[in-house]
């Protein structure tokens, strides 16, 4: 049974009102680099009646890298999949609370789900090229959203392969099947594919864990470049990576957010005992 509890008809309108009020108070989130891009309020997720995410409150700040850390099984993947609504594809999911992106509740029943997913590029753990050529992998998203002009598509493909640092390596074999690329190249291809639909947020789920050190460094560097234009939320299980690139840290444990804040604060001066223990390698 798929039950989408929230939002009900009544509190949907309340919600709209608060959003309108919010907008009057603050400036538009995207024009203010301090406003959160994604706000999670009292989010609870149940999978097959198991309470997986427990009362999550969280902000993903605009144009910076937020690393979500925590031991395996604590719900990091579930959280990311809630953000782009891929989670609901599983059975028996119940979601309460809200996730606001640019002030828009993504679980609003009137919302176009493809619009939400387009906004949030997801980079999964293992690269997953589509069964088509390198070119078509990048052109796939734009084509689906209505770009038909060949010249435009050529330009898009070149632009985002460049953005993912892959253009020089593949420009001579754009029409070769994508899965002939190395794993590291495939992951950059997937990044480029996500970027090609012009998302606002990039979600990465341990995006470097299947890669060799050199490829994973490349991806990391890309993230650092990309935060100029995108808000980035990365799940990572290597603390080192978080220390290298994170602006903000969210530490999760057993489905709850234990501590969240600017990276320097959390790393140098954790408030919670659990965080301190996790950071010092007491458990992992």
């Amino acid at each position, binding site marked *: 049974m798929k039950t989408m509890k929230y939002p009900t008809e009544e509190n949907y309108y309340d919600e709209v009102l608060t959003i309108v009020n919010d907008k009057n108070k603050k400036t538009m989130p995207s024009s203010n680099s301090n406003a959160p891009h994604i706000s999670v309020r009292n989010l609870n997720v149940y999978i097959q009646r198991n309470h997986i995410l427990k009362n999550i409150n969280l902000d993903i700040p605009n144009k910076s890298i937020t690393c979500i850390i925590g031991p395996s099984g604590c719900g990091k993947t579930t959280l990311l999949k809630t953000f782009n609504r891929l989670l609901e*594809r599983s059975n028996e999911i119940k979601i309460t609370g809200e996730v606001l992106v640019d002030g828009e509740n993504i679980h609003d029943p009137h919302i176009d789900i493809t619009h939400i997913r387009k906004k*949030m590029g997801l980079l*999964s753990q293992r690269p*997953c*090229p589509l069964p088509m050529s390198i070119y078509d992998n990048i052109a796939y998203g734009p084509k689906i959203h209505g770009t038909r002009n060949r010249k435009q598509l050529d330009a898009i493909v070149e632009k985002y392969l460049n953005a993912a640092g892959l253009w020089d390596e593949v420009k001579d074999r754009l029409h070769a099947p994508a899965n*002939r690329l190395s794993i590291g190249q495939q992951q950059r291809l997937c990044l480029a*594919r*996500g970027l090609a639909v012009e998302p606002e947020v990039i979600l990465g789920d341990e995006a470097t864990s299947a890669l060799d050190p050199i490829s994973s460094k490349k991806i990391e560097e890309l993230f650092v470049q990309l935060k100029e234009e995108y808000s980035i939320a990365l799940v990572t299980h290597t603390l080192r990576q978080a220390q290298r690139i994170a602006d903000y840290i969210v530490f999760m444990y057993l489905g709850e957010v234990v501590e969240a804040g600017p990276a320097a604060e959390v790393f140098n001066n954790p408030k919670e005992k659990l965080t301190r223990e996790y950071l010092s390698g007491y458990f992992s």
Partner: protein
Amino acid sequence: MNKLNHTKYRILKDILARNVMLGLTIFSLLLAVIIGIGLYIKSAPILHDHSLWSLISSSSWRPFKGEFGFLPFIMGTLWVTLIAIVIALPLCLLSGIYLSEYAHPFVKRIVDPMIDILAGIPPVVYGVWGALVVVPFIGDVVAPHFVEYSSGYSVLSGGIVLAIMIIPLIISILTEIFAAIPKELRDASLSVGATKWQTIKFVIIRKSTPGIIAAVVLAISRAFGETIAVLMVCGNISQVPHSVFDSGYPLPALIANNYGEMMSLPLYDSALMLAALILFVIILIFNTISRIVLVRIERRFAL
């Protein structure tokens, strides 16, 4: 010392197991060759008297006069199989997609065993049902709109009955093929904002093309050889069908209907053996071609 012996023994067993399995594999391959050779030897007399080309290009089948033209039977087989696959394939693709991509697990739990039951019904039951329902329906309801007269015993009836027989086979293979596609691939397509249908059309179907072809090949091979159900609804008149409402006489029906009778006629049993050989060769050629196509596609798209 004892340990050494034990190791030797284990290695010996390993070698033995491998060779026995190799032997059995070769044996089953040999069976196909033996059948082919046997059929060839048995049909040698008629091939000695007539040229192969004249046999397969002539449509006159008059055993009493010593005229053996196989064209009607070859065409009958091809018509019935083609009609069956044209009916079955779109239907199977759509229901396979529905079952694996859209259907609630509960629906799947009910439908899957039902499909298995359908696949297990004996051909003769389908034949009886075809003769009782499909034949009159074609003859009395459908055909009058298109042709002056049709008894209903036609290649169309044969194709329909055959289609119904291969549908469960194709559907169950297809759902397995779709189920083997990783969830991540669907997620990858959905997360750039594709709809479910776009994902199916551009990713799932593409990824499973080799599997779909293999399923169709299997179904067609099965259709070529299906005998009894087709025999009961096709009319079995040795003529080359010119429309779907004409009667036909597929090769397997010819063999099954006549083997053991009128064997005293000169060359008659040899002619039936040749019919079997032709069927054998058609299936062989068909499978070889489709295998080549399959490999080409897999190479081309690195699926």
